[in-house]
């Protein structure tokens, strides 16, 4: 257990270092790339005096190094600054949007697991059958459908033609259904293929044959003997996917006007609201890095082999 803790500690240090580098990179990107927020906010017709006043107010007249010190000091204290447009703290704005992104991410992941894992297991058990081939074709096709096309088509069918669900937004509770289906089915396609491959590999192992020879029932073999081992590689995939989903499925959020972090990011980029862009990107990267770290740790806890191998 001590070794495990050391490993987790090392990974944690690595993750923090990565995030520190990310925050430097984000600051550099925003300040090196041309595009003047003052100009965007005031428009072309603004007087020179107004511009000066705004620059002063936003602290943009300070040298870059001073701005950077302020920014980094703020980040360390959890203060992400103020939005240039709404003048509200960035952290509070992110806090309002985060629950929407989290709800969407977990619901989509759940849908993907409920469809993808059973489908993948079934395809592996009846390998080569018509059902297997059908599933593989569907999964290959599913992976090629862009979300920003599937989304509008679902809206066309279920909202506009059938009138079952709202077109977009988040005002009614069933508004989450279409974005979840859009994201979930795309993930399910990937997950089904992974499950099938992983399951096929495990079912070829000698211990499965032994269990069969001892007369263990097929369902029991599948669920108690094969699935736990086949599930381990899936954990990594699920972790990666959850990480990127929690980072705001930007395109899907925009399609459905879902008020999550991704939508906030795109809006703030359009308006050149630098502190808001900075805050959103930092939060997204932090969540992503953290979820990946947790996945690794969970993997090490669940699979004793990785602990031995690393010792």
């Amino acid at each position, binding site marked *: 257990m001590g070794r495990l803790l050391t490993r987790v500690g090392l990974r944690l240090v*690595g993750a923090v270092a*990565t*995030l520190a*580098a*990310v925050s430097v*990179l*984000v600051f550099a*990107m*925003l300040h090196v*790339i041309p*595009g003047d927020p003052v100009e965007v906010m005031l428009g072309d017709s603004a007087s020179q005096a107004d511009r000066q006043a705004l620059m002063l107010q936003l602290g943009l007249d300070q040298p870059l190094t001073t701005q950077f010190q302020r920014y980094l000091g703020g980040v360390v204290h959890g203060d992400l600054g103020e939005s240039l447009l709404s003048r509200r703290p960035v952290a509070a704005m992110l806090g309002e949007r985060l629950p929407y992104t989290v709800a969407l991410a977990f619901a989509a992941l759940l849908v993907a697991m409920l469809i993808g894992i059973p489908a993948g297991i079934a395809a592996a058990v009846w390998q080569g059958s018509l059902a297997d081939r059908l599933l593989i074709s569907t999964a*290959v*096709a599913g*992976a*090629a*459908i*862009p979300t*920003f*096309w599937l989304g*509008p*088509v679902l*809206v*066309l069918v279920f909202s*506009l033609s059938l009138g079952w669900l709202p077109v977009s937004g988040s005002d009614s509770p069933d508004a989450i259904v279409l974005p979840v289906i859009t994201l979930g089915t795309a993930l399910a396609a990937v997950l089904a293929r992974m499950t099938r491959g992983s399951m096929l590999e495990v079912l070829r192992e000698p211990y499965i044959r032994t269990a069969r020879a001892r007369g263990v029932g097929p369902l029991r073999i599948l669920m108690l003997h094969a699935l736990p081992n086949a599930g381990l590689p899936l954990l990594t995939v699920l972790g990666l996917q959850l*990480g*990127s989903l929690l*980072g705001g499925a*930007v*395109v899907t959020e*925009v*399609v459905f006007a879902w008020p999550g972090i991704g939508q906030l*990011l*795109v809006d703030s*980029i*359009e308006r050149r609201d630098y502190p808001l*862009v900075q805050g959103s*990107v930092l939060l*997204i*990267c932090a969540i*992503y*890095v953290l979820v990946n770290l947790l996945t690794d740790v969970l993997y090490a806890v669940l699979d004793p082999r990785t602990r031995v191998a690393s010792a």
Partner: protein
Amino acid sequence: MKSTVVVCAGFIIGLAAAAAAVGALAPLDITTIDLQRILYAPGHDALLGYDELGRAVLPRLLVALATSLQVAIVVVGCSALLGTLIGIVSGWYGGATDYLLMRIVDVCMAFPGLLLAIVLAGLLGAGLGNVVIALVTVGWLGFTRLARAQTLSVRQRDHVQAARVLGTPVTAILWRHVLPLVLTPLWVEASLAVAGVVIAEASLSFLGLGIQAPAPSLGSMIRDGTRYMLVAPHLVLAPGITLFVLVLAINLLGDAWRDRLGKPRA
């Protein structure tokens, strides 16, 4: 069955390339507005109908296809070149160089999915060149990791060791003895990356961060079409199905190639 699929996929990509070439070579009329035909449905006199401004959809689709393929080829080409170079250098020299380069890769990998490209494209401003820059910034990572891993194992091979003992200059060793052995999995990665870049470019354009109007892109055509979905569904269906079939065909060919090489994707 497998071979028919591959032949079909090859045929589709050939067709797309030919269509794109027509779109790129012959100056198609993509800006003329026919006010009588706003949102005109597809029919015998208008193959894919007209859009919300009264422009014919088919020539716009061809130009969008051409742009999409051009962006994909340029982005994958640059990513592969840059990524392979950095990966081989990193794997060959090891030590501090390797450590530094890999930490840069780590930082870029902390941005999930398209995030880095979205932010970059957004800040650089929309436009073809900036889209390419944004996508290469994300694209080189995969090639670097793959090339580095390959170089690490190839470096230990006898023929490379022999070349070193004989005093062959490093550039010659890398060019003649390492690169050829590193390339195979990179080709597969490249073929699959093309599909990824096609979707990525369309996504950026869909978000309004990619190709700018009036130049057509599959992504922006879908975005503009969604507003008229109920009256003119062909505006969303035509570019969407085109994109879907193109990506599917590229993926199928890439998969077939991977199976032929008999190596799982690293």
